[in-house]
């Protein structure tokens, strides 16, 4: 157990008064940036980076990774309370978290989310601890064809679980792909679909799109249909909080399955967003309570949150061992590594043992600190739901406007967000599903890049997708998830008809 010894050594570095203080400070700042839409962990990390130039690398990475944990948790808060996902990976949490909160069970929704998130993160760290070297090897197996297959798998596990009219799902998905294609194209270097708006060369930011589609769209629907949230009980409800946390283990199947999906997607290049969607999609397919999904079902929160955090945590490993950051925040941290004089790469584990294992140990501690702090904030956030809707609505609007602007200091983004708000309203009103649109915006261009890179490498032959065991398995699994449910359904219909 060489890893175990290293980990214990890591703990001896991470556990010190200044380090714990850094963790608490980092987590609190992270929660703040996570809660405010538009600001995110990259902002917090980027802001504090200059302060860390004078620190020891271990202290610096502990501070920065604590911001990351705080922001991951904080991002779920707005998803659940206001249907505004602050990060791409917390979109799937809105599907059941928001209905549950609107139903007067905000405390329960938040506690479920945080509890399962912490579980996911811990599984991710344990995985890193035990299998660090093996994982790095697995990640290397992924070329463009395998990348594409992973994205395909994520799409097929999620598409078709909504029960929306098929042609409306198709429109939603295709528009999402088109939006993802706007801007500079990596493979050809040419500018696409900007329709004469020069600024669109940067593409349409995901956060801008979801703030409009989900946040603004939901506000408009709520005010029109008078779907005001049920008032939350006015006492601070610690008992509900503890009961919810204590009751989480009964979802053990969902927890374990989602953690497995999350770790898998974090190690492979799928990432946290694809992981949370896939986990939600699969939970909805296999759960006996699937009819309740979308109406405030606890497993609908457990599944995406666990997978999101498991993936977010295990994605830090490719960053350290290969130098490919799995997320924007990981990328800023990687920039920091270079400035502190460390080169990410396989050698880091050999040359900088103190740093790597100090960081891994701090992942355990940081997550525990984060979940405790964030649970303490639950009553404060739940109290927000006590504000009457007619006061909350203009405030949410205001925060969305500021958030959309701050994503990249762009007024165009604010106007786009308003446009997406109208689209979100129309789609919701007419039963067009929003989730495929969002999924396509997030991973559509990556999937396209991967496909075209594969085509370049194979000189146009589709054979590259059945070239080796790994890619063949992924593609087959994708088709199975896509085609089997409608097949079973039609067989079932046919049988029923014969009876």
């Amino acid at each position, binding site marked *: 157990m060489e890893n175990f010894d290293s980990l214990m050594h890591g703990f001896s570095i991470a556990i010190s008064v200044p380090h714990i203080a850094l963790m608490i400070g980092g987590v609190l700042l992270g929660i*703040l940036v996570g809660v405010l839409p538009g600001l995110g962990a990259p902002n917090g990390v980027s802001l504090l980076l200059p302060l860390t130039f004078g620190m020891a690398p271990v202290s610096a990475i502990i501070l920065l990774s604590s911001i990351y944990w705080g922001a991951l948790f904080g991002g779920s808060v707005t998803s659940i309370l206001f249907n505004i996902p602050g990060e791409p990976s917390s979109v799937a949490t809105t599907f059941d978290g928001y209905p549950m909160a609107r139903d007067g069970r905000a405390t329960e929704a938040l506690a479920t989310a945080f509890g399962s998130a912490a579980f996911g993160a811990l599984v991710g760290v344990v995985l890193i601890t035990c299998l660090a070297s093996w994982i790095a090897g697995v990640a290397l197996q992924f070329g463009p064809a395998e990348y594409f297959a992973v994205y395909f798998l994520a799409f097929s596990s999620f598409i078709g679980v909504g029960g929306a009219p098929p042609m409306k799902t198709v429109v939603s998905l295709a528009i999402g792909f088109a939006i993802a294609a706007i801007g500079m194209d990596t493979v050809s270097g040419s500018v696409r679909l900007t329709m004469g708006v020069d600024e669109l060369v940067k593409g349409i930011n995901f956060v801008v799109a979801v703030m409009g589609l989900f946040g603004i769209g939901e506000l408009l629907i709520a005010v029109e249909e*008078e779907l005001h949230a049920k008032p939350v009980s006015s006492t601070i409800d610690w008992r509900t909080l503890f009961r919810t946390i204590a009751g989480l283990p009964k979802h053990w199947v969902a927890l374990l399955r989602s953690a497995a999906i999350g770790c898998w997607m974090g190690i492979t290049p799928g990432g946290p967003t694809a992981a949370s969607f896939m986990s939600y999609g699969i939970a909805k397919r296999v759960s006996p309570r699937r009819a309740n999904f979308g109406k405030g079902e606890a497993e609908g929160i457990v599944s995406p949150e666990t997978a999101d955090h498991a993936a977010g945590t295990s994605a830090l490993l490719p960053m350290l061992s290969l130098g490919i950051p799995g997320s924007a925040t990981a990328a800023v941290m990687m920039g920091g590594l270079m400035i502190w004089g460390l080169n990410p790469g396989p050698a880091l584990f050999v040359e900088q043992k103190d740093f790597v294992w100090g960081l891994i140990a701090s992942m355990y501690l940081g997550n525990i600190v984060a979940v405790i702090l964030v649970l303490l904030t639950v009553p404060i956030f739940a109290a927000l739901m006590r504000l009457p809707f007619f006061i909350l609505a*203009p405030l949410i*609007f*205001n925060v969305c406007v*500021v958030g959309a602007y701050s994503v990249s200091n762009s007024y165009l983004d604010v106007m786009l967000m308003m446009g997406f708000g109208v689209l979100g309203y129309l789609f919701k009103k*007419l039963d067009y599903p929003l989730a495929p649109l969002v999924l396509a915006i997030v991973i559509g261009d990556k999937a396209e890049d991967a496909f075209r890179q594969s085509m*370049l490498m194979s000189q146009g032959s589709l054979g590259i997708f059945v070239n080796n065991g790994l890619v063949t398995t992924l593609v087959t699994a994708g088709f199975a998830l896509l085609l089997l449910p409608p097949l079973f359904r039609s067989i079932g219909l046919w049988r029923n008809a014969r009876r």
Partner: protein
Amino acid sequence: MLSRRTLEAATAILTGAFGVAVVVSSLNNGIDWSESGVESGTFPFITGTIVVVASLYNLVRGWLRGKGIVATRQGLQRTAALFLPAVLFVALIPLIGIYVGAVLYLFGSLRLQSHLSTVRSALIAVVASVALYVVFERLFQVSLPHGWLGAVLDL
């Protein structure tokens, strides 16, 4: 009062128009196989075409099958009362900046629509905007637009 039929048709036309724009725009990028692989317009062209075809289907189906009312007159009025002031707020940002705009927007909405007292409305509006200023401008050094007014006052 808004019938489902009208709204279905309007939405399908909107998505269809977007599809047409995507198709036309992607033709400029080329939709063939070239030296450097699949040309960059190919995928947008395919997705645009799918959007157009599916929108036509939705248009016809929505027109034939759409029945009943999707939104009442009162409902639409409430939505407009929330959305139009917000649109005005966004439109005025280049002129008066985000902070002054936010104070006016919040005060107006709370006072006129939510019927809060003048003092309360003003208090919420100012506190919320100052909080935004502190968090964004001071804490995270994200400069929000000050508008033409800000330039004149040299903030």
